[in-house]
């Protein structure tokens, strides 16, 4: 057993309101540079839809992630030798139009225009060519189901469902999906990089691109099934979400998590067995991958694990953080959070609590948790998104959320305080009142200190932060803004 620590995130989709507030500070701090205009380390998608870049989930098209070889997972787009021989052209690289052509407006016209009978207008100008352009796609083109009757048909999560039925206006459903890099345990981007520029940080599992070693081969972009590594067309190097590592090192949550209005994001440390990563990623059936990944996680409150972690060189503050990790509770103890598209076999580490749909019209029915199959969002859709099609895993998580609601409603006086009905519902899904109280605290109250348990890095481990401030991997004088 080789214990490693990983900083991980959970997003509670049940509370995401799709406001994009997470994307804005991320954009302002990390990707407001030339060549990175189109790059969103954090973006929010509306489902059903094809997302950003277009159809990123469709690996028939993009060949990202891993497929199962004879015994081990193999890169879907081909192994090291094939990549080496084909290095002169990457057939699986998205074109910038698959994301969107970045644009701005010549705002100067508004103030420089001479007096006319009509108001002056501004036209969109491409930030690549400087020419006038027609905007045909953007980073949130499908916001709140805009055009879902067209693009929704291509959503791969409809597999096994009659999509025509669900895309009719009276049946349509919607959920928001905020996305960042998954900082996978078995990252396809790292395995795809010919230069060895991408790496997983030993101390906290954050996946980074070494900007000085990146030679711009672009295999990381196509190797990532979540399409969360981006090629900066100006600097000629790849960039990706850094999990705001300078903030994490200082014990602060990421910008997207810090600013989340709905308090949907949780950050915590997970301990896992790195020796069994390959084995877990090679689980036989796609539906077994979720269980294989959760089996990798180690219980930090087990004294044997804690002492083994200390012996493996994991810093004591990381172990303490793991003991209080909200992510461990949500993902392992309560099994509420699920990994997105586990069938990509990268073992992602940013998980999602599936959303309940609007249930006002169903409330009060004494149907208990069985109504999860009658919610507006079909369980099958969520299962395709979060459990490789395994509906029972999603159903159990949804039932727990329902049982928690009924339990709290009972406690608030909608029923007798000691309502046997609510307690029985809890028991049915394997929860106790004590667990429910704790779940309520973490999910509904969601206090800052409970959501974010981020161990501060010891100063001795990180060198001179004062000197490095504002650089984050970019050497002095090369922030990607240079004009050459």
């Amino acid at each position, binding site marked *: 057993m080789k214990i*490693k620590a990983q900083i991980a995130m959970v997003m509670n989709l049940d509370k995401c309101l799709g406001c994009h507030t997470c994307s804005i500070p991320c954009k302002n701090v990390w990707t407001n540079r030339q060549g990175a205009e189109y790059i969103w380390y954090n973006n929010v998608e509306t489902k059903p839809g094809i997302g950003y870049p277009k159809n990123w989930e469709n690996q028939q098209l993009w060949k990202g992630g891993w497929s199962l070889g004879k015994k081990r997972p193999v*890169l879907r787009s081909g192994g*090291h*030798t094939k*990549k*080496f021989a084909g*290095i*002169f*052209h*990457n*057939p699986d*690289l*998205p*074109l*910038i139009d698959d994301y969107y052509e970045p644009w701005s407006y010549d705002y100067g016209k508004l103030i420089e225009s001479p007096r006319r009978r009509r108001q002056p207008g501004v036209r969109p100008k491409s930030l*690549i*060519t*400087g*020419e006038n352009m027609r905007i045909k796609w953007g980073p949130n083109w499908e916001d709140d189901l805009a055009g879902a009757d067209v693009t929704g048909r291509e959503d791969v999560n409809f597999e096994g469902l009659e999509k025509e039925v669900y895309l009719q206006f009276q049946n349509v459903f919607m959920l928001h999906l905020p996305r960042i890099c998954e900082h996978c345990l*078995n*990252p396809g981007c*790292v*395995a795809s*990089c*010919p*230069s*060895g520029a*991408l*790496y*997983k*940080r*030993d*101390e906290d599992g954050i996946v980074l691109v070494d*900007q*000085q070693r*990146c*030679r*711009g*081969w*672009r295999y990381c972009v196509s190797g990532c099934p979540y399409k969360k590594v981006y*090629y900066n*067309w*100006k600097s*000629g*190097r790849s960039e990706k979400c850094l999990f705001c590592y300078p903030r994490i090192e200082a014990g602060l949550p990421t910008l997207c998590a810090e600013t989340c209005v709905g308090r949907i994001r949780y950050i915590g440390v997970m301990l896992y067995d790195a020796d069994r*990563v390959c084995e877990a990623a090679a689980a036989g059936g796609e539906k077994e991958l979720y269980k294989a990944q959760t089996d990798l996680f180690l219980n930090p409150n087990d004294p044997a694990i804690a002492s083994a972690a200390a012996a493996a060189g994991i810093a004591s503050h990381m172990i303490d953080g793991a003991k209080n990790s909200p992510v461990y509770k949500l993902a392992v103890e309560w099994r509420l959070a699920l990994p997105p598209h586990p069938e990509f076999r990268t073992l992602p580490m940013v998980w999602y609590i599936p959303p309940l749909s609007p249930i006002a019209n169903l409330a009060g029915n004494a149907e208990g948790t069985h109504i999860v199959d009658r919610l507006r969002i079909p369980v099958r859709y969520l299962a395709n998104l979060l459990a490789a099609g395994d509906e029972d895993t999603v159903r159990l998580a949804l039932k727990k959320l329902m049982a928690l609601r009924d339990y709290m409603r009972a406690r608030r006086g909608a029923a007798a305080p000691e309502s046997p009905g609510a307690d029985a519902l809890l028991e049915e899904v394997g929860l106790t009142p004590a667990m429910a109280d704790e779940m309520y605290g973490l999910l509904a109250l969601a206090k800052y200190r409970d959501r974010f348990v981020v161990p501060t*890095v010891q100063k001795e*481990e*990180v*060198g001179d932060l004062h000197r490095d401030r504002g650089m984050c991997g*970019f*050497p002095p004088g*090369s922030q990607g803004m240079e004009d*050459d």
Partner: protein
Amino acid sequence: MNWDNLAFVVFPYISLTTFTVGHAYRYATDPFHWNSRSSEILEKDRLKYASIFFHYGVVFTFFGHFAGLLIPQKLLTALGITPAIHMRIALVSGMLFGLLALVGAALLLWRRLGRQRVLRHSSMNDLVTLGLLAAVIALGTYNVFFGHCDVLDTVAPWIRSILTLSPAPGLISSVPLTYKLHVVAALALLGFSPFSRLIHIWSVPVPYLYRSNIIYRQRRAE
């Protein structure tokens, strides 16, 4: 000093000096820009065949030049490759890969000049590099098809004389003009390459062939 001395003694050493010193200087002072500067994300339809043809053509042509010009004929004869066989191999492979590289370079030029996105993103450096490459390849391909010159006793020993620091420009003075132009253009390209995007040649990711999939790195490796 006559033109031959200037072009085939002075210029080669200037070129080789900037080539070696230039690469070392660039690597030491500017590692951040050491990459291939791919524009595939902006345009990939035209690039597909252009890039594949060009690169494979150039790579094989390069190895052909390397083996054919630097290895002394005496050594090859000892191995059973007579000058006649050598010339036949050189001509056939030169025609094949030279043409491949030429078609590739032409397609690359067509793409770079014909696609607004790529052109706007091109620096003067990029255009000079591609222009020089196209000129060298075009002259070389012309020579292999239409030139009739025994390079084994002229150009090849001259190159070896340069590399052994005993320059003998007389060896090359008799070859046709197109050969001389090819040599001079190639030397110019060599001298210019450290300051262009061509440096990515030196980053051939050979270690990728035998490294493990996942890389872990300590926060402070150094």
